[in-house]
Protein backbone atom coordinates (compact mmCIF):
# COMPACT_ATOMS: atom_id res chain seq x y z
CA UNK A 1 0.00 0.00 0.00
CA UNK A 2 1.30 3.42 -0.96
CA UNK A 3 0.52 6.43 1.18
CA UNK A 4 1.12 10.12 0.44
CA UNK A 5 1.35 12.46 3.40
CA UNK A 6 0.93 16.17 2.68
CA UNK A 7 3.27 18.14 4.92
CA UNK A 8 4.25 21.76 5.42
CA UNK A 9 7.43 23.39 6.57
CA UNK A 10 6.52 26.33 8.78
CA UNK A 11 8.35 29.02 10.78
CA UNK A 12 8.95 27.76 14.33
CA UNK A 13 5.70 28.67 16.18
CA UNK A 14 7.74 29.29 19.34
CA UNK A 15 9.70 32.11 17.62
CA UNK A 16 8.27 35.62 17.20
CA UNK A 17 6.23 35.89 13.99
CA UNK A 18 5.51 38.79 11.68
CA UNK A 19 3.93 39.72 8.37
CA UNK A 20 6.00 41.06 5.49
CA UNK A 21 5.17 44.12 3.37
CA UNK A 22 2.80 42.09 1.19
CA UNK A 23 1.01 40.87 4.37
CA UNK A 24 2.34 37.35 3.85
CA UNK A 25 3.71 35.44 6.84
CA UNK A 26 7.45 36.08 7.07
CA UNK A 27 9.00 32.70 6.21
CA UNK A 28 12.57 33.90 5.83
CA UNK A 29 13.81 32.32 9.07
CA UNK A 30 14.43 28.69 9.88
CA UNK A 31 11.61 26.36 8.88
CA UNK A 32 10.55 23.20 10.70
CA UNK A 33 8.18 20.34 9.89
CA UNK A 34 4.76 21.34 11.25
CA UNK A 35 4.27 19.22 14.35
CA UNK A 36 0.67 18.64 13.23
CA UNK A 37 2.08 16.75 10.22
CA UNK A 38 4.20 14.35 12.26
CA UNK A 39 1.05 12.44 13.27
CA UNK A 40 0.18 11.82 9.61
CA UNK A 41 3.71 10.65 8.85
CA UNK A 42 3.66 8.27 11.81
CA UNK A 43 0.20 6.96 10.90
CA UNK A 44 1.30 6.38 7.30
CA UNK A 45 4.41 4.48 8.39
CA UNK A 46 2.34 2.24 10.68
CA UNK A 47 -0.26 1.54 7.96
CA UNK A 48 2.39 0.63 5.36
CA UNK A 49 4.15 -1.57 7.94
CA UNK A 50 0.92 -3.38 8.65
CA UNK A 51 0.14 -3.81 4.94
CA UNK A 52 3.57 -5.41 4.54
CA UNK A 53 4.41 -3.60 1.31
CA UNK A 54 4.43 -0.15 -0.25
CA UNK A 55 5.97 3.11 0.79
CA UNK A 56 5.32 6.55 2.23
CA UNK A 57 5.88 9.67 0.13
CA UNK A 58 5.74 13.16 1.60
CA UNK A 59 4.48 15.94 -0.67
CA UNK A 60 4.91 19.61 0.13
CA UNK A 61 4.71 23.12 -1.29
CA UNK A 62 6.99 25.95 -0.21
CA UNK A 63 10.56 27.11 -0.39
CA UNK A 64 13.05 24.32 -1.08
CA UNK A 65 15.90 26.51 0.15
CA UNK A 66 15.63 24.64 3.43
CA UNK A 67 14.31 21.08 3.41
CA UNK A 68 15.29 20.10 6.94
CA UNK A 69 11.63 19.52 7.76
CA UNK A 70 11.24 17.10 4.84
CA UNK A 71 14.46 15.33 5.86
CA UNK A 72 12.91 14.93 9.28
CA UNK A 73 9.97 13.03 7.73
CA UNK A 74 12.42 10.95 5.67
CA UNK A 75 14.43 10.22 8.81
CA UNK A 76 11.24 8.96 10.48
CA UNK A 77 10.94 6.47 7.62
CA UNK A 78 9.26 8.03 4.57
CA UNK A 79 10.83 6.76 1.32
CA UNK A 80 10.92 9.98 -0.68
CA UNK A 81 9.83 13.59 -0.76
CA UNK A 82 8.45 15.90 -3.43
CA UNK A 83 8.34 19.66 -2.95
CA UNK A 84 6.92 22.26 -5.32
CA UNK A 85 9.05 25.34 -4.87
CA UNK A 86 8.53 28.43 -6.98
CA UNK A 87 8.72 32.18 -6.28
CA UNK A 88 5.47 32.61 -8.18
CA UNK A 89 3.67 30.57 -5.51
CA UNK A 90 4.14 33.17 -2.78
CA UNK A 91 0.66 34.38 -1.83
CA UNK A 92 -1.10 31.21 -3.00
CA UNK A 93 -4.34 30.53 -1.08
CA UNK A 94 -5.71 27.23 0.16
CA UNK A 95 -7.44 26.33 -3.13
CA UNK A 96 -4.28 27.17 -5.11
CA UNK A 97 -2.27 25.00 -2.73
CA UNK A 98 -4.72 22.16 -3.27
CA UNK A 99 -4.33 22.57 -7.05
CA UNK A 100 -0.54 22.31 -6.74
CA UNK A 101 -0.71 19.27 -4.45
CA UNK A 102 -3.31 17.63 -6.72
CA UNK A 103 -1.05 18.10 -9.75
CA UNK A 104 1.77 16.30 -7.94
CA UNK A 105 -0.32 13.50 -6.46
CA UNK A 106 -2.22 12.85 -9.72
CA UNK A 107 1.03 11.77 -11.39
CA UNK A 108 1.00 8.58 -9.34
CA UNK A 109 -2.18 8.21 -7.31
CA UNK A 110 -1.56 6.40 -3.99
CA UNK A 111 -4.03 4.23 -2.09
CA UNK A 112 -4.35 6.72 0.73
CA UNK A 113 -3.58 10.41 1.27
CA UNK A 114 -3.10 11.65 4.84
CA UNK A 115 -3.08 15.29 5.94
CA UNK A 116 -3.21 17.15 9.24
CA UNK A 117 -6.63 18.65 10.00
CA UNK A 118 -5.00 22.05 9.51
CA UNK A 119 -1.55 23.62 9.44
CA UNK A 120 -0.31 25.38 12.55
CA UNK A 121 0.52 28.62 10.71
CA UNK A 122 -2.21 29.30 8.13
CA UNK A 123 -4.83 27.10 9.85
CA UNK A 124 -7.48 27.43 7.13
CA UNK A 125 -8.21 23.69 7.42
CA UNK A 126 -9.74 23.51 3.94
CA UNK A 127 -6.81 22.44 1.74
CA UNK A 128 -7.21 18.66 2.36
CA UNK A 129 -10.87 18.59 1.37
CA UNK A 130 -10.26 20.87 -1.63
CA UNK A 131 -7.52 18.42 -2.65
CA UNK A 132 -9.89 15.46 -2.31
CA UNK A 133 -12.52 17.23 -4.44
CA UNK A 134 -9.96 18.07 -7.15
CA UNK A 135 -8.83 14.43 -7.21
CA UNK A 136 -12.42 13.15 -7.12
CA UNK A 137 -11.77 11.14 -3.95
CA UNK A 138 -13.85 10.58 -0.82
CA UNK A 139 -12.51 12.23 2.33
CA UNK A 140 -12.87 11.71 6.05
CA UNK A 141 -11.70 14.57 8.26
CA UNK A 142 -10.83 14.69 11.98
CA UNK A 143 -9.73 11.06 12.33
CA UNK A 144 -9.05 9.74 15.83
CA UNK A 145 -8.00 6.37 14.47
CA UNK A 146 -7.39 4.96 11.00
CA UNK A 147 -7.37 1.34 9.82
CA UNK A 148 -7.23 -0.09 6.34
CA UNK A 149 -9.26 -3.25 5.67
CA UNK A 150 -9.01 -4.63 2.17
CA UNK A 151 -10.10 -1.93 -0.24
CA UNK A 152 -11.60 0.44 2.29
CA UNK A 153 -10.46 2.73 5.06
CA UNK A 154 -12.21 2.79 8.42
CA UNK A 155 -11.95 5.88 10.56
CA UNK A 156 -13.19 6.95 13.98
CA UNK A 157 -14.11 10.55 13.26
CA UNK A 158 -14.35 13.16 16.01
CA UNK A 159 -17.83 14.72 16.37
CA UNK A 160 -19.37 17.30 18.70
CA UNK A 161 -20.93 14.58 20.83
CA UNK A 162 -18.42 11.76 20.57
CA UNK A 163 -17.26 9.99 17.44
CA UNK A 164 -18.60 8.29 14.33
CA UNK A 165 -17.27 5.16 12.68
CA UNK A 166 -16.92 6.17 9.04
CA UNK A 167 -15.83 4.10 6.08
CA UNK A 168 -14.81 5.01 2.53
CA UNK A 169 -13.48 3.04 -0.43
CA UNK A 170 -9.80 3.46 -1.34
CA UNK A 171 -8.25 5.55 -2.71
CA UNK A 172 -9.32 8.13 -0.15
CA UNK A 173 -8.06 11.15 1.77
CA UNK A 174 -8.07 11.25 5.58
CA UNK A 175 -7.13 14.11 7.91
CA UNK A 176 -5.77 13.10 11.29
CA UNK A 177 -6.05 14.99 14.57
CA UNK A 178 -3.02 15.32 16.82
CA UNK A 179 -2.48 12.73 19.51
CA UNK A 180 -3.84 9.80 17.46
CA UNK A 181 -0.43 8.16 17.39
CA UNK A 182 2.87 8.88 19.08
CA UNK A 183 5.23 10.19 16.38
CA UNK A 184 8.53 8.33 16.55
CA UNK A 185 11.81 10.10 17.02
CA UNK A 186 14.13 9.65 14.08
CA UNK A 187 16.90 7.18 14.96
CA UNK A 188 20.54 7.92 14.16
CA UNK A 189 20.32 5.31 11.42
CA UNK A 190 17.19 6.98 10.09
CA UNK A 191 18.83 10.40 10.03
CA UNK A 192 21.84 9.01 8.15
CA UNK A 193 19.60 7.16 5.67
CA UNK A 194 17.49 10.30 5.08
CA UNK A 195 20.51 12.12 3.68
CA UNK A 196 20.51 9.90 0.60
CA UNK A 197 16.76 9.60 0.10
CA UNK A 198 15.37 11.43 -2.96
CA UNK A 199 13.90 14.92 -2.59
CA UNK A 200 12.35 15.93 -5.91
CA UNK A 201 12.00 19.69 -6.43
CA UNK A 202 9.37 20.79 -8.96
CA UNK A 203 8.41 24.16 -10.38
CA UNK A 204 4.94 25.42 -11.29
CA UNK A 205 5.80 25.03 -14.98
CA UNK A 206 6.85 21.38 -14.39
CA UNK A 207 3.26 20.72 -13.31
CA UNK A 208 1.68 22.59 -16.19
CA UNK A 209 0.13 25.13 -13.83
CA UNK A 210 0.24 28.91 -14.22
CA UNK A 211 -1.91 31.83 -13.08
CA UNK A 212 -4.52 29.67 -11.32
CA UNK A 213 -2.01 29.50 -8.47
CA UNK A 214 -0.04 32.31 -6.82
CA UNK A 215 -1.54 35.62 -5.65
CA UNK A 216 -3.58 36.15 -8.86
CA UNK A 217 -5.27 32.78 -8.45
CA UNK A 218 -6.09 33.56 -4.81
CA UNK A 219 -8.63 36.22 -5.89
CA UNK A 220 -8.56 37.78 -2.44
CA UNK A 221 -6.67 40.69 -0.94
CA UNK A 222 -5.71 41.76 2.53
CA UNK A 223 -6.91 45.32 2.81
CA UNK A 224 -5.66 46.17 6.28
CA UNK A 225 -3.84 44.79 9.31
CA UNK A 226 -4.77 46.40 12.61
CA UNK A 227 -3.84 45.82 16.24
CA UNK A 228 -6.59 43.93 18.06
CA UNK A 229 -8.04 45.21 21.31
CA UNK A 230 -5.70 44.04 24.03
CA UNK A 231 -6.44 42.85 27.53
CA UNK A 232 -4.68 44.24 30.57
CA UNK A 233 -3.08 42.12 33.26
CA UNK A 234 -5.00 42.27 36.53
CA UNK A 235 -4.10 41.23 40.06
CA UNK A 236 -1.43 38.57 40.62
CA UNK A 237 -0.58 36.80 43.88
CA UNK A 238 2.04 34.26 44.85
CA UNK A 239 0.35 31.24 46.42
CA UNK A 240 1.14 30.94 50.10
CA UNK A 241 -1.39 28.25 50.80
CA UNK A 242 -4.18 30.77 50.28
CA UNK A 243 -4.36 30.70 46.47
CA UNK A 244 -7.56 28.64 46.33
CA UNK A 245 -9.21 30.89 48.91
CA UNK A 246 -8.32 33.95 46.83
CA UNK A 247 -9.75 32.36 43.68
CA UNK A 248 -13.00 31.59 45.52
CA UNK A 249 -13.19 35.25 46.65
CA UNK A 250 -12.59 36.40 43.06
CA UNK A 251 -15.30 34.04 41.73
CA UNK A 252 -17.66 35.47 44.37
CA UNK A 253 -16.82 39.01 43.30
CA UNK A 254 -17.83 38.25 39.71
CA UNK A 255 -20.93 36.40 40.96
CA UNK A 256 -19.93 33.02 39.57
CA UNK A 257 -20.25 31.70 43.13
Amino acid at each position, binding site marked *: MNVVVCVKQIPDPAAPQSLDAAHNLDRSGKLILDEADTYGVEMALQLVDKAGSGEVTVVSMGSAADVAGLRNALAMGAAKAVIVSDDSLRGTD*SLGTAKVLAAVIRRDLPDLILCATESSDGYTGTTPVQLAELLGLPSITFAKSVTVEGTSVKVDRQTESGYDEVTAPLPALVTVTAGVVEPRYASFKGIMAAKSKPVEVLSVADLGLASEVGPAGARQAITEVVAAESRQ*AGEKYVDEGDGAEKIVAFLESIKVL
Partner: protein
Amino acid sequence: MAISNIWVVVEPSNGSLTTTSLELLSHARTLSSSVSAITWGDQTAALAAEAGEFGATTLYDVGPLNGVLPGVPVAAAIAELVANVGAPDAILVPTSYDGRDIAGRLSARLDRPVLTNVTGLADEDGLVTEHPVFGGTLTVKARFTGEGPGIIVVRAKSFVVEPTEGLAANVVAAPVGVAAFAGAATITTSHVEERTGPKLEEAAVVVSGGRGLGEAASYALIEEAAKLLNGAPGASRAIVDAGWVPYSHQVGQTGKTVKPTVYIACGISGATQHMVGMKGSKNIVAINKDADAPIFQIADFGIVGDVHKVLPALIEALKARG
Protein backbone atom coordinates in the same frame (compact mmCIF):
# COMPACT_ATOMS: atom_id res chain seq x y z
CA MET B 1 -22.29 47.66 -4.59
CA ALA B 2 -24.93 46.67 -2.09
CA ILE B 3 -25.15 43.13 -0.79
CA SER B 4 -28.34 41.78 -2.34
CA ASN B 5 -28.30 38.14 -1.38
CA ILE B 6 -26.57 35.94 1.21
CA TRP B 7 -26.84 32.20 1.66
CA VAL B 8 -26.08 30.60 5.00
CA VAL B 9 -25.30 26.91 5.52
CA VAL B 10 -27.21 25.96 8.68
CA GLU B 11 -26.34 22.73 10.45
CA PRO B 12 -28.98 20.47 11.93
CA SER B 13 -28.32 18.89 15.32
CA ASN B 14 -31.01 16.76 17.00
CA GLY B 15 -33.91 18.52 15.34
CA SER B 16 -32.72 22.10 15.75
CA LEU B 17 -30.03 24.33 14.28
CA THR B 18 -26.63 24.72 15.90
CA THR B 19 -25.92 27.94 17.79
CA THR B 20 -23.24 28.99 15.30
CA SER B 21 -25.78 28.59 12.48
CA LEU B 22 -28.14 30.98 14.31
CA GLU B 23 -25.27 33.44 14.87
CA LEU B 24 -24.61 33.47 11.11
CA LEU B 25 -28.28 33.89 10.19
CA SER B 26 -28.64 36.74 12.68
CA HIS B 27 -25.62 38.56 11.30
CA ALA B 28 -26.45 37.88 7.64
CA ARG B 29 -29.75 39.70 8.22
CA THR B 30 -27.87 42.88 9.17
CA LEU B 31 -25.96 42.75 5.87
CA SER B 32 -28.65 41.81 3.40
CA SER B 33 -32.45 41.92 3.13
CA SER B 34 -32.44 38.58 1.36
CA VAL B 35 -31.07 35.70 3.42
CA SER B 36 -31.55 32.09 2.38
CA ALA B 37 -30.47 29.02 4.33
CA ILE B 38 -29.33 25.59 3.22
CA THR B 39 -29.74 22.50 5.38
CA TRP B 40 -30.10 18.72 5.19
CA GLY B 41 -31.56 15.79 7.10
CA ASP B 42 -35.10 14.60 7.74
CA GLN B 43 -36.49 17.21 10.16
CA THR B 44 -36.80 20.14 7.81
CA ALA B 45 -40.24 21.34 8.97
CA ALA B 46 -38.97 22.14 12.45
CA LEU B 47 -35.80 23.66 11.01
CA ALA B 48 -37.82 25.91 8.64
CA ALA B 49 -39.59 27.53 11.58
CA GLU B 50 -36.28 28.13 13.35
CA ALA B 51 -34.49 29.36 10.23
CA GLY B 52 -37.36 31.80 9.62
CA GLU B 53 -37.31 33.01 13.20
CA PHE B 54 -33.68 33.97 12.78
CA GLY B 55 -34.10 35.68 9.43
CA ALA B 56 -34.07 33.24 6.51
CA THR B 57 -36.89 33.64 3.99
CA THR B 58 -36.05 30.49 2.03
CA LEU B 59 -34.71 27.18 3.32
CA TYR B 60 -33.14 24.99 0.67
CA ASP B 61 -33.48 21.38 1.76
CA VAL B 62 -30.91 18.88 0.54
CA GLY B 63 -32.88 16.09 2.22
CA PRO B 64 -31.75 12.92 4.02
CA LEU B 65 -28.11 11.95 3.51
CA ASN B 66 -28.53 8.36 4.69
CA GLY B 67 -25.32 8.39 6.67
CA VAL B 68 -23.13 9.97 3.99
CA LEU B 69 -20.87 12.69 5.46
CA PRO B 70 -22.41 16.06 4.48
CA GLY B 71 -19.34 17.51 2.70
CA VAL B 72 -19.84 16.00 -0.76
CA PRO B 73 -23.64 15.96 -1.14
CA VAL B 74 -24.29 19.38 0.43
CA ALA B 75 -21.55 21.03 -1.65
CA ALA B 76 -22.97 19.34 -4.75
CA ALA B 77 -26.46 20.61 -3.92
CA ILE B 78 -25.21 24.18 -3.40
CA ALA B 79 -23.23 24.09 -6.65
CA GLU B 80 -26.40 22.97 -8.42
CA LEU B 81 -28.39 25.79 -6.81
CA VAL B 82 -25.80 28.30 -7.98
CA ALA B 83 -26.16 26.95 -11.51
CA ASN B 84 -29.98 26.96 -11.36
CA VAL B 85 -30.97 30.09 -9.43
CA GLY B 86 -27.81 32.19 -9.76
CA ALA B 87 -24.99 32.90 -7.32
CA PRO B 88 -25.55 34.89 -4.11
CA ASP B 89 -23.02 37.57 -3.08
CA ALA B 90 -21.60 35.27 -0.44
CA ILE B 91 -22.10 31.88 1.16
CA LEU B 92 -21.55 31.76 4.93
CA VAL B 93 -20.57 28.48 6.56
CA PRO B 94 -20.12 27.74 10.29
CA THR B 95 -16.69 26.57 11.43
CA SER B 96 -17.39 22.99 12.47
CA TYR B 97 -16.34 19.47 11.55
CA ASP B 98 -18.86 19.28 8.70
CA GLY B 99 -18.88 23.01 7.87
CA ARG B 100 -15.26 23.01 6.80
CA ASP B 101 -15.84 19.89 4.68
CA ILE B 102 -18.73 21.57 2.89
CA ALA B 103 -16.79 24.83 2.35
CA GLY B 104 -13.70 23.05 1.02
CA ARG B 105 -15.66 20.81 -1.34
CA LEU B 106 -17.74 23.76 -2.58
CA SER B 107 -14.68 25.94 -3.13
CA ALA B 108 -13.03 23.34 -5.36
CA ARG B 109 -16.29 22.52 -7.13
CA LEU B 110 -17.14 26.17 -7.96
CA ASP B 111 -13.49 27.16 -8.31
CA ARG B 112 -14.03 30.03 -5.87
CA PRO B 113 -11.75 30.98 -2.99
CA VAL B 114 -12.69 30.48 0.63
CA LEU B 115 -11.86 32.74 3.57
CA THR B 116 -11.70 30.89 6.88
CA ASN B 117 -11.48 31.63 10.61
CA VAL B 118 -13.54 34.75 10.07
CA THR B 119 -14.56 36.56 13.27
CA GLY B 120 -16.00 39.75 11.78
CA LEU B 121 -17.92 40.58 8.63
CA ALA B 122 -19.01 44.03 7.45
CA ASP B 123 -20.26 45.67 4.28
CA GLU B 124 -17.70 48.26 3.23
CA ASP B 125 -18.62 48.60 -0.41
CA GLY B 126 -18.45 44.81 -0.59
CA LEU B 127 -17.93 42.31 2.18
CA VAL B 128 -14.83 42.72 4.34
CA THR B 129 -13.81 39.84 6.60
CA GLU B 130 -11.80 39.96 9.83
CA HIS B 131 -9.36 37.23 10.84
CA PRO B 132 -7.40 37.06 14.09
CA VAL B 133 -3.69 36.25 13.62
CA PHE B 134 -0.75 35.75 15.97
CA GLY B 135 -2.88 34.73 18.92
CA GLY B 136 -5.41 37.45 18.26
CA THR B 137 -2.95 40.30 18.75
CA LEU B 138 -3.50 41.44 15.15
CA THR B 139 -6.62 41.51 13.02
CA VAL B 140 -6.25 40.98 9.29
CA LYS B 141 -9.01 42.42 7.09
CA ALA B 142 -9.58 40.87 3.69
CA ARG B 143 -11.96 40.85 0.76
CA PHE B 144 -12.57 38.81 -2.37
CA THR B 145 -11.34 40.42 -5.57
CA GLY B 146 -12.74 38.01 -8.18
CA GLU B 147 -16.13 36.83 -9.31
CA GLY B 148 -18.46 35.54 -6.56
CA PRO B 149 -19.79 33.84 -4.69
CA GLY B 150 -17.09 34.12 -2.05
CA ILE B 151 -17.21 31.36 0.53
CA ILE B 152 -16.79 32.57 4.10
CA VAL B 153 -16.23 30.19 7.03
CA VAL B 154 -17.06 31.90 10.33
CA ARG B 155 -15.84 30.89 13.78
CA ALA B 156 -18.31 30.25 16.59
CA LYS B 157 -19.13 33.15 18.93
CA SER B 158 -18.34 35.81 16.35
CA PHE B 159 -21.86 37.24 16.23
CA VAL B 160 -24.80 37.64 18.59
CA VAL B 161 -27.88 35.44 18.17
CA GLU B 162 -30.99 37.58 17.67
CA PRO B 163 -34.45 36.25 16.78
CA THR B 164 -36.97 38.17 14.68
CA GLU B 165 -40.72 37.94 14.31
CA GLY B 166 -40.05 36.08 11.05
CA LEU B 167 -42.40 33.43 9.77
CA ALA B 168 -41.18 29.94 8.93
CA ALA B 169 -38.86 29.91 5.94
CA ASN B 170 -40.27 28.75 2.65
CA VAL B 171 -38.88 25.23 2.09
CA VAL B 172 -37.50 24.56 -1.38
CA ALA B 173 -36.17 21.11 -2.23
CA ALA B 174 -32.56 21.11 -3.37
CA PRO B 175 -31.89 17.44 -3.93
CA VAL B 176 -28.63 16.08 -5.30
CA GLY B 177 -28.17 13.40 -7.89
CA VAL B 178 -27.17 9.90 -6.85
CA ALA B 179 -23.71 10.61 -8.26
CA ALA B 180 -22.89 12.65 -5.15
CA PHE B 181 -23.41 9.56 -3.01
CA ALA B 182 -21.41 7.07 -5.07
CA GLY B 183 -18.20 6.06 -3.34
CA ALA B 184 -18.79 8.64 -0.58
CA ALA B 185 -17.59 8.39 3.00
CA THR B 186 -20.42 6.89 5.05
CA ILE B 187 -21.13 6.72 8.77
CA THR B 188 -21.68 3.14 9.91
CA THR B 189 -22.10 3.73 13.66
CA SER B 190 -22.38 6.84 15.84
CA HIS B 191 -21.03 6.89 19.37
CA VAL B 192 -22.35 9.50 21.77
CA GLU B 193 -20.00 9.99 24.66
CA GLU B 194 -21.83 10.66 27.85
CA ARG B 195 -21.41 14.22 28.96
CA THR B 196 -22.44 15.66 32.25
CA GLY B 197 -22.60 19.41 32.42
CA PRO B 198 -22.67 22.06 29.70
CA LYS B 199 -20.97 22.04 26.30
CA LEU B 200 -17.52 23.58 26.14
CA GLU B 201 -18.58 26.44 23.83
CA GLU B 202 -21.71 27.22 25.83
CA ALA B 203 -20.51 26.85 29.43
CA ALA B 204 -20.45 29.94 31.66
CA VAL B 205 -17.36 28.52 33.36
CA VAL B 206 -14.48 26.78 31.60
CA VAL B 207 -11.66 25.14 33.53
CA SER B 208 -8.76 24.26 31.22
CA GLY B 209 -5.60 22.29 31.77
CA GLY B 210 -2.21 22.41 30.10
CA ARG B 211 1.23 20.86 30.19
CA GLY B 212 1.74 22.15 33.74
CA LEU B 213 -0.50 19.32 34.95
CA GLY B 214 2.54 17.09 34.40
CA GLU B 215 0.68 13.90 33.51
CA ALA B 216 -2.58 12.72 31.93
CA ALA B 217 -3.97 11.45 35.24
CA SER B 218 -3.94 14.96 36.69
CA TYR B 219 -6.57 16.03 34.16
CA ALA B 220 -9.09 14.49 36.58
CA LEU B 221 -8.53 17.58 38.74
CA ILE B 222 -9.65 19.79 35.84
CA GLU B 223 -12.77 17.69 35.30
CA GLU B 224 -13.64 17.72 38.98
CA ALA B 225 -13.19 21.49 39.35
CA ALA B 226 -15.23 22.08 36.18
CA LYS B 227 -18.03 19.87 37.48
CA LEU B 228 -18.16 21.62 40.85
CA LEU B 229 -18.45 24.98 39.06
CA ASN B 230 -21.11 23.62 36.69
CA GLY B 231 -18.65 24.32 33.91
CA ALA B 232 -16.90 22.46 31.12
CA PRO B 233 -13.34 21.11 31.01
CA GLY B 234 -11.04 22.43 28.29
CA ALA B 235 -7.45 21.83 27.22
CA SER B 236 -4.43 23.40 25.59
CA ARG B 237 -3.10 22.02 22.32
CA ALA B 238 -0.02 20.63 24.09
CA ILE B 239 -1.96 18.04 26.08
CA VAL B 240 -4.24 17.17 23.16
CA ASP B 241 -1.14 16.57 21.01
CA ALA B 242 0.23 14.43 23.82
CA GLY B 243 -2.93 12.30 23.64
CA TRP B 244 -4.10 13.07 27.22
CA VAL B 245 -7.53 14.31 26.12
CA PRO B 246 -9.45 14.21 22.83
CA TYR B 247 -9.38 17.00 20.25
CA SER B 248 -12.95 18.00 21.13
CA HIS B 249 -11.59 19.53 24.37
CA GLN B 250 -9.07 21.79 22.63
CA VAL B 251 -9.40 25.54 23.06
CA GLY B 252 -7.42 27.74 20.70
CA GLN B 253 -6.57 28.57 17.13
CA THR B 254 -6.73 24.91 16.14
CA GLY B 255 -9.71 24.14 18.30
CA LYS B 256 -12.68 25.86 19.86
CA THR B 257 -13.35 29.49 20.63
CA VAL B 258 -14.89 30.03 24.06
CA LYS B 259 -16.20 33.20 25.69
CA PRO B 260 -17.36 32.12 29.15
CA THR B 261 -18.06 34.37 32.14
CA VAL B 262 -14.85 33.01 33.62
CA TYR B 263 -12.04 30.98 32.09
CA ILE B 264 -9.72 29.28 34.57
CA ALA B 265 -6.38 28.34 32.95
CA CYS B 266 -4.48 25.77 34.99
CA GLY B 267 -0.86 25.01 34.11
CA ILE B 268 -1.27 26.73 30.74
CA SER B 269 1.62 29.02 29.83
CA GLY B 270 -0.38 30.96 27.25
CA ALA B 271 1.00 30.17 23.81
CA THR B 272 -0.46 32.49 21.15
CA GLN B 273 -2.13 29.37 19.70
CA HIS B 274 -4.17 29.04 22.91
CA MET B 275 -4.88 32.71 23.64
CA VAL B 276 -6.82 33.30 20.40
CA GLY B 277 -9.41 30.79 21.54
CA MET B 278 -10.10 32.26 24.97
CA LYS B 279 -9.08 35.91 25.12
CA GLY B 280 -12.69 36.93 24.54
CA SER B 281 -13.64 35.46 27.94
CA LYS B 282 -15.28 37.95 30.30
CA ASN B 283 -12.88 37.09 33.13
CA ILE B 284 -9.65 35.09 33.03
CA VAL B 285 -8.10 33.36 36.03
CA ALA B 286 -4.65 31.80 35.66
CA ILE B 287 -2.78 29.37 37.88
CA ASN B 288 0.82 28.80 36.84
CA LYS B 289 4.05 28.21 38.68
CA ASP B 290 6.02 30.45 36.31
CA ALA B 291 5.43 34.07 37.33
CA ASP B 292 6.54 35.22 33.86
CA ALA B 293 4.16 32.96 31.91
CA PRO B 294 2.44 34.97 29.13
CA ILE B 295 -0.99 33.88 30.40
CA PHE B 296 -0.60 36.36 33.30
CA GLN B 297 -0.42 39.25 30.82
CA ILE B 298 -4.08 38.73 29.94
CA ALA B 299 -5.36 37.28 33.24
CA ASP B 300 -7.63 39.40 35.41
CA PHE B 301 -6.68 37.28 38.38
CA GLY B 302 -3.44 35.32 38.63
CA ILE B 303 -2.08 32.87 41.17
CA VAL B 304 1.61 32.07 40.91
CA GLY B 305 1.67 28.56 42.31
CA ASP B 306 1.67 24.83 41.74
CA VAL B 307 -1.57 23.56 40.15
CA HIS B 308 -1.11 20.33 42.10
CA LYS B 309 -1.54 22.30 45.32
CA VAL B 310 -3.92 25.08 44.28
CA LEU B 311 -6.42 22.93 42.34
CA PRO B 312 -6.99 20.29 45.08
CA ALA B 313 -7.43 23.12 47.59
CA LEU B 314 -9.89 24.84 45.26
CA ILE B 315 -11.81 21.58 44.83
CA GLU B 316 -11.99 21.15 48.63
CA ALA B 317 -13.17 24.75 49.07
CA LEU B 318 -15.87 24.31 46.43
CA LYS B 319 -17.02 21.03 47.99
CA ALA B 320 -17.19 22.68 51.40
CA ARG B 321 -19.59 25.25 50.00
CA GLY B 322 -21.83 22.39 48.91
